[in-house]
């Protein structure tokens, strides 16, 4: 099996080749007539030709035939990539729920011990068809990781399905594709394809509540006594907010703010000090904190691996 994006690419290549031939034909005819039939080369009146029925039938029929062929090829590709409804020719071996929200992503992995909730970084095992259920918490979003899949919208009141398949390990970037408000641009998608063993270890780690936080005890106090706690959850603590991303293992993520900054202690500090500077319009407000509190919070959050 190949990634859906590759199947689409193969079809697009055929279509592009056909289109390119037609394009060249028309442009060549235009250039030829512009050169051959310009007024200075044609003495007297042009012959008053009004049309040719046979020619019309030919150039109506041939495009029609080409389109029939393209249509048939298209149905083949749709069957191969599992079409819009999950459960195509290759059954999925894994299911994930992705929820779009202004302007970040939540992913839920169903396991025997309940859902494992992560944010903004989707991990999938390599060489494994993954069916993603797509839902939205607010407006219409669209999930698109160009290197491995086409896009599918997240519509209120509806669960859509998208097949992901990565043939190589690595990090793939994507983007919310349906305009969803002020920070549509910084609703970046990160998909990490891991070897199966790495993926299993990652999922087990994510399933655990936050680990030993003794190093960040001061930061945890800052977190719990400020606005942070009303929007974010950290499993294993009293923080149970659901409006923003789950932060139980935020220290292990590669980016902050759904892609706006890479996750380093310096960036974390800058982000916490003023999210609006980096992601204007983001629903995360600027929370006034002293430098000491900020340092403690950074130590705490970066420690949540």
């Amino acid at each position: 099996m190949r990634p859906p994006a590759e199947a689409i690419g193969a079809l697009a290549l055929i279509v592009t080749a056909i289109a390119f031939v037609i394009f060249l034909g028309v442009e060549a005819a235009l250039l030829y007539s512009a050169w051959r039939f310009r007024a200075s080369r044609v003495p007297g009146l042009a012959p008053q030709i009004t049309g040719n029925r046979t020619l019309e039938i030919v150039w109506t029929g041939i495009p029609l035939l080409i389109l029939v062929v393209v249509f048939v090829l298209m149905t083949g590709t749709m069957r191969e990539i599992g079409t819009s409804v999950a459960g195509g020719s290759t059954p999925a071996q894994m299911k994930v729920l992705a929820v779009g929200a202004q302007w970040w992503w939540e992913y839920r992995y169903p396991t025997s011990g309940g859902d494992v909730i992560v944010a903004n970084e989707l991990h999938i095992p390599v060489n494994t068809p993954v069916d993603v259920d797509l839902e939205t918490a607010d407006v219409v979003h669209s999930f698109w990781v160009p290197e491995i899949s086409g896009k599918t919208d997240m519509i209120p009141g509806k669960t859509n399905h998208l097949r992901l398949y990565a043939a190589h390990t690595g990090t793939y970037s994507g983007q919310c594709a349906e305009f969803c408000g002020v920070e549509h641009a910084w609703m970046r998608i990160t998909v990490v394809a891991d070897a199966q063993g790495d993926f299993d270890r990652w999922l087990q780690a994510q399933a655990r509540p936050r680990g030993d936080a003794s190093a960040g005890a001061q930061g945890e106090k800052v977190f719990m006594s400020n606005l942070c706690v009303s929007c974010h959850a950290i499993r294993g603590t009293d923080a149970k907010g659901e409006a923003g991303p789950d932060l139980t293992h935020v220290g292990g993520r590669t980016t902050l703010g759904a892609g706006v900054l890479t996750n380093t202690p310096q960036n974390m500090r800058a982000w916490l000090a003023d999210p609006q500077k980096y992601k204007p319009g983001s629903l995360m407000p600027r929370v006034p904190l002293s430098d000491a509190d900020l340092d403690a919070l950074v130590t705490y959050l970066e420690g949540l691996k």
Partner: protein
Amino acid sequence: MSATTVPTTTTAPTLWVRRPAGAKWAGWLRTVDHKEIGVLYMGMALLFFVFGGLTALTIRVQLAVPENHLVDPAIYDQIFTIHGVTMIFLVAIPVLVGFMNYMVPLMIGARDVAFPRLNALSFWLSFLGGLLVYFSFIAGGGPDAGWFAYPPLSGHTYSTGQGLDYYILGLAVNGAGTIVGAVNIAVTILLMRCPGMSISRLPLFVWMTLVTSFLILAAYPALSAALVMLFVDRHLGAHFFDANAGGDPLIWQHAFWFFGHPEVYIVILPAFGMISEVIPVFSGKPIFGYRFVAASSVAIGFLSMSVWAHHMFAVGMSDAENLFFSGASMLIAVPTGVKVLNWTATMIGGRLRFTTSMLWATGFIATFVMGGLTGVSLAIVPIDWFVTDSYYVVAHMHYVLFGGVVFGVFAGLYYWFPKMTGRLLSERLGKWHFWLTFVGFHMTFLPQHWLGIEGMARRMWTYPASTGWGTLNMLSSIGAGVMTIGTLIFVWNLLVSLRSGQLAGDDPWDAFTLEWTTSSPPVPENYLTVPVATSRRPLWDRKHPDMKDPS
């Protein structure tokens, strides 16, 4: 055909006093003359084109470099929304309706449109609707949910300002004007043709105007209904689009695109019509396959009513729905292709005069064929899943709406300007205008195909530097700058030529159709005696009595 000769009208336009002295400006408010209303429509389009162009430039400046913080995202959203709304509803439609108003009665040998007062009403509704949309900026902020305003983003929960309300009211009023105007034009074409002007002799611009008028009647009411539903949702607590209360946001998408896709053909068909007038005249021979060009317009009209959901392949419709809309959308390429081939065949074997008008027409075919081909790729469901809502769509859409409609309108404008004003536009400035716009256009929009394929979504106010999209975006922005220079030259050309352009005479292009038999500008009520259409090319017949057009 009968041997009736076309009466000559050599009377100078100065014989007629348009209106009493001193009533100049008030006259424009009171006028019910189809030509003056046509000019009003074109003036409206030019006015809003300034705003549409400035917003486009702002977008290109903002996107020229990655992670640019020049324009605040909340402002950026209003800018691209008003850009789309302006260019579609307040530029493309008015300029085309302006040409229809001005040219259709002349081309069919009528004195005016069927309902002159209704005509004035439709202009003022359209214009005031446009002002209403723009009033939002004075009232506290423009609409910011994109020109297709998908709920719930456009609903009261996520759009708390009044921008969307002015969008709804303005477009409803503007649309009422457009619907009324379409009735008027259709009735005019069906009932007011001069002797000899049978349906099969209608100039192709008139043919395509007729199809467009019926399409407006079929499509616009869907938009009006959707706007009313959105308004009721926002202000009276209905839940048409509220999934939490049993509504469905997809109803809006269906209703909007049921209007929105025919809208594309509503604006492109009159441009096709202009091309179909310009190319034969400057090729010195009749259009190749008149009946096929006319019939393909009707086919496009019907098919365009059943393709709307190709805008929605990513919303999760069933395979059956996707395949139906995919097939219908592919089919529409056939009559469109027939047109392109017939225009090309008209040029082959002709005697081509590359006036500015003809350059625009040739540039139109060369560019539109690319937009048409990418259009077919978007009709193919899996390819659409990949590129929909990306810059690929932005590129495609501008290839058909700019490379198509705008190039077509410029071909028509350089062609008919002398008829409307009595003066020629400068050919020298016109050629600068064409080449700068042509090169700038492709530089702006060709790179956007690749940006879309690489993953750049529409309507992003900025993009990460790590994506590597900076170079192509910069190229695109430079192209926009080149186009701006071309546009400034055009405006200069317009101003200079209106004042002191070369006098045109009745028939500066050695043309074929009736409008070139009257004076330039035409006398009020158009013809001093009732003209007669002896064939599809009555003026050709007069100039070549020994080889009359057989149609």
